[in-house]
């Protein structure tokens, strides 16, 4: 199950310099800075064979003990040929929540990044169609952020209601 990722880490180091690497239960995680992200991902896809973008998600560390950064963006990569897996993390802080989109590399990033934008308000630079996907367009908050309460803030009552005659 655990695949050997040392060659990949070597290649990443050659490309982006020293990067923090950690391992937990067989998952190898690397943290890259956001200006190096596109470069690192291109290297991973084109020369290390990570052709499957498994998931894009985000963790809001607002209430997390000893957290230094507000948001941790997570890219889960896999290779269909070697079954190697790699987790790439990018830490973001307010006010600059912009990161380059992975759409040019993996078209599958389209909806995954839209969902991350919808839920956390992370802006993906270069995404062709960055709109809300699950929440209604007129929604103003980012519901998966930790400062958003479980039961909402009453946005539901402000939804525009269209009557039968107006439709």
């Amino acid at each position, binding site marked *: 199950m655990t695949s050997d990722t040392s060659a990949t880490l070597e290649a990443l180091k050659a490309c982006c310099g020293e990067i923090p690497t950690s391992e937990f*239960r067989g998952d190898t995680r690397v943290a890259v800075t956001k200006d190096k992200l596109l470069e690192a991902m291109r290297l991973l896809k084109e020369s290390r064979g990570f052709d499957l973008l498994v998931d894009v998600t985000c963790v809001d560390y607002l209430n997390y003990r000893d957290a230094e950064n507000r948001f941790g963006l997570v890219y889960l990569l896999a290779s269909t040929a070697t*079954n190697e897996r790699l987790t790439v993390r990018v830490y973001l802080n307010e006010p600059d929540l912009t990161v380059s989109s992975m759409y040019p590399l993996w*078209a599958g990033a389209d909806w995954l990044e839209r969902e991350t934008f919808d839920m956390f308000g992370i802006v993906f630079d270069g995404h062709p169609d960055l709109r809300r996907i699950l929440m209604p367009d007129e929604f103003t908050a980012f519901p998966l952020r930790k400062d958003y309460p479980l039961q909402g803030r009453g946005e539901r009552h402000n939804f525009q209601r269209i009557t039968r005659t107006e439709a």
Partner: protein
Amino acid sequence: MPIAEPTIEPAVDSNEDYLWTLNFGPQHPATHTTLRLVLKLDGERVVDAVPDIGFLHSGFEKEGEHLNYNQYVTITDRMNYISPVANNVAWHGAVEKLLGIQITPRCTYIRTIVAELARISDHLLATGAMGLDVGAFTFFLYAFYQREVIYDIFETLCGQRFHPSLTRVGGLAYDFTPLVIEKIRTFIKTFPQTLDDMERLLNRNRIFVDRTKGVGILSKERATNMSATGPIARASGVTRDLRKDEPYLAYADFDFNVCCATAGDCFARYYLRMAEMRESLRILEQAIENIPAGPVNIGLDERKTLPSKAQVYQTIEGTITHFEMVMTNRGFEVPSEETYGAIESPNGELGFYVAGDGSDVAYRARCRPPSYIHFALFPELIRGHTLSDVVAVLGSLNIIAAELDR
């Protein structure tokens, strides 16, 4: 009949107003659940399709940050409700990876068996509903009869047909009884007959083949690039199956094949699901006769599972563990770490990205939903085909809106 490559470009400006817009859903029998498509039509050809989703969004991931690791299993039931046990297994597989728990051999076998039953049940619905949508009603009835048998097995196992919530951290809520094993054995004996009948009904059925062959073609490169996994990717020639590639649970012990097709059209996706059901049956046959004896939950010493009622009332360790587990300020220790655990669910790779923060409630419980990722493929699969092909493509992708929106 193969249909020529789509030649019509999506309309960009208003001088193409001969195109008309059709609203498909959110309430439409062929969407099966609640999703909406805005189709742009040129006569009967679909020029473009814009999916509009979110009607069933109910904040499952937000709930995951407020319910503890055992409670959240009831929410995972409601994601892909066609094969809920697969979600249970995926969720607790990821949680146990985070906690570093090694479950007992009996538990791995039982989880494997229920996951394979869920796969058969899911594929029966996927192929059955696809058949129903393109006009094969008898086929649908054959499929649903066998789904009832699987529901009966789950009802015998845990008293719930639709939402079993079977797994717990470090084990299961219910162990197999001899009656359950007998019912599964009967199912294994009787099911191949139905499968043969189903294949005879559709595999060479002229109407069905004409409506599905060459429709909604997905190439191998495009499938991987669009993050497709599971039957959708395997029907396009991607040989990825986590059961073989990253053997989890007891899959390494069994002899089975990974099914693949190369055509990548709706018929290939149907055919692949039928073939996968046979492989699942092979796994079931081997697993049900080899269930190891022993406990189904991990030991009390680990303080991760609730002890049985007999242990609570008759032993002091059981009583203490029970109180330690249920008191709100105790629970179990969770590392402040993040991990991703995935299984090959019937629909594709179903994974949970779980972040722990020391408490027994997940800090973040992200679900990687295969339906969501596969629905993104829909517009490019349908472009250039006719309106009646919409239901065939939708059926072949097996979109479950509860998982799509979560």
